[in-house]
């Protein structure tokens, strides 16, 4: 073997070895426990007719979406009469459509899906419903009412409203008459971001306040850090800040610490475990967060099971599960953080 060849092989081997060594010292620690409800206040949890539930949610790289899938799987496992058949949603709406077609052919009783985009998956919802499979839409609405049996979603407008009300009340209590308020939304082109901002502005307007500066990020910690750094530089003095997303909030809080700023208070969004912990500890500017909980996936599986068994929600007079449920956006503060700790993701 020539020296050059030997050297190349050694180099290749070293590179492969380094890769393996790095793989060996890697671990996945998703941390937060899944959100599961196994309470049986109304007898609905008692084992009944077997229900096969198909499930599809995008494999996005964001903590919230990861929690959606984890919650759905954990909730399904809590029932002995539920068989969950998850299918990968792929990278886009077309891939999810293809995956769901194969699922529909297997004729499950119910399909729970968080579509890439409700409008793009509407036809798939209709197809499943026509095939006699009840569809539970998770969070991203279908335009056609015939495309779903139940829709369960968060309240983006309500989230902004809750954040704005908290900010307004706090500032009013402090006696600040013309406050400087900052806002760091997520991806600005998304409808959900626009709804959140509208809710925030509407709530502030009721107090006679408005946002002084608004720097969008991209739902990631590094983009949150960059947006917050720019915002803090633009506003040398600030009274309050709303950051739409707790995942990007890790970066926002880092930027605030790096700039040595603490003259204002901050409200988060979504209700991540780290945000709830920080609020409970009360050692940073983060004083509250408004929920947009992935616990809706657990509820969706529970309700899909009831739909499959033809049961209703026994607290209600109706014999069947309602058609639409919108979760309330709740405000987590130091006072109630312990109550919400189990819902953190």
């Amino acid at each position, binding site marked *: 073997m020539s020296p050059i060849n030997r050297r190349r092989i050694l180099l290749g081997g070293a590179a492969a070895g380094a890769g393996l060594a790095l793989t060996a*010292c890697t671990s996945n620690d998703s941390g937060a426990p899944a959100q599961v409800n196994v309470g049986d206040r109304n007898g609905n949890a008692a084992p009944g007719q077997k229900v096969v539930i198909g499930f599809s949610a995008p*494999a996005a790289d*964001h903590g919230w979406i990861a929690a959606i899938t984890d919650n759905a799987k954990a909730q399904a496992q809590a029932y002995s009469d539920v068989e969950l058949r998850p299918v990968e949603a792929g990278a886009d709406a077309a891939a999810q459509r293809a995956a769901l077609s194969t699922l529909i052919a297997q004729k499950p009783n119910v399909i729970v899906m968080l579509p890439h985009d409700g409008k793009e998956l509407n036809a798939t919802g209709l197809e499943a419903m026509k095939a006699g499979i009840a569809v539970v839409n998770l969070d991203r609405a279908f335009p056609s009412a015939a495309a779903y049996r139940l829709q369960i979603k968060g309240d983006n407008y309500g989230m902004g409203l809750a954040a704005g009300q908290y900010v307004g009340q706090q500032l009013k209590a402090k006696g600040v008459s013309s406050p400087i308020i900052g806002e760091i939304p997520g991806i600005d082109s998304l409808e959900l971001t626009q709804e959140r901002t509208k809710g925030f502005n509407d709530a502030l307007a009721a107090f006679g306040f408005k946002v002084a500066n608004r720097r969008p990020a991209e739902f990631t*910690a*590094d983009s949150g850090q960059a947006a917050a*750094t720019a915002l803090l*530089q633009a506003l040398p003095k600030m009274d309050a800040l709303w950051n739409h997303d707790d995942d990007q909030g890790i970066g926002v809080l880092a930027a605030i610490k790096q700039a040595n700023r603490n003259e204002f208070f901050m409200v988060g969004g979504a209700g991540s475990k780290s945000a709830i912990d920080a609020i409970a500890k009360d050692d940073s500017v983060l004083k509250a967060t408004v929920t947009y909980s992935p616990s809706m996936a657990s509820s969706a599986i529970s309700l899909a099971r009831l739909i499959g068994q033809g049961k209703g929600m026994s607290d209600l007079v109706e014999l069947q599960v309602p058609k639409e449920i919108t979760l309330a956006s709740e405000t987590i503060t130091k006072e109630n953080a312990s109550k919400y700790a189990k819902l953190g993701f």
Partner: protein
Amino acid sequence: MIAETALPKPPQRWDEGLVRNLGLVGVLIILVLIGIITKPELYSDPAWVRNNFLIILQQASGIGVVTVGMTFVIIGGGIDLSVGAIIALAGVWATTVATQSYGAGGMVFTALVVGLAVGLVNGVLIAYGKLVSFIATLAMLVAARGLAAQISGKQTQVSTNDTINSIATTKLLGIPLLVWILGLVVAAGWVLLNRTTFGRRTVAVGGNPEAARLAGINVKRHTVLLFMLSGLCCGIAAIMLTSQATSAQAAMANLYELDAIAAAIIGGTLLSGGRGTIIGALFGVLVFSTITNLFAINNLATEVQNMVKGGIIVAAVLLQQFRFRSLTNLLRRRDVSDKP
């Protein structure tokens, strides 16, 4: 065989590089002047102005380091679309719980090795697998982000290492450590491109690979080294970004590839290879960083900012073509006039 010493040298004609860089300095001054006119109340505070200058540099630091690596790759005739994904993979790997337990040294080592390893794979695919760099690094963009999502369990990996986190807050002689790192990388890049055989070979390989091969340069090995250099820069940037955000996630450094390519081109690097400068690329990054700052202090929407960025890129390339054409015309005229 052509002697390697006869190969074209990197652009050291001070006139051309200087004029372009002066143009970029002019753009920077105009941007600052717009800031002063639109927000006089902020610019009247000297402490704020000094801090603002450092923040512009600091915000340019991570992308600046990536752009140095990208400039080498482009001058060498390739393109690296995977830089953002390499940062995400290196950052996520360095912040994974198991890796964090080895301390700051372990995290930095991991990030650098991951960057180098991915660069090696890119380079081998392109040089020996004969894949076009656009395709190979596009594939790596998708794959590396996928692997980063897998490793991180799709969760934001928070860095609990105080040493790593303090990189973003540490200052030396009143200047942030991140800015020093950018300065060192730029200086090393400048020396490597303008004062070493490696730099001359890079220009030769990008300008005419066949001529470079005939001149005795191992073009394939050099291509691998260029992509490894880009990967190494991404590894450094991964630590810088992780320290700033005190965390890493699979979606971090989104669209860094486009920002780095744009900055390199604005700085005078030819997309077809064979020509470019490190200082120009640094000014390209600073122009973008200053625009972001200007838009932030005036509370202007980022979508307009992106349109302005797009306009600047088009203007820079048009200017490049115009200058190239006029230079060619000039040479042609000289050629004619030189004839007896």
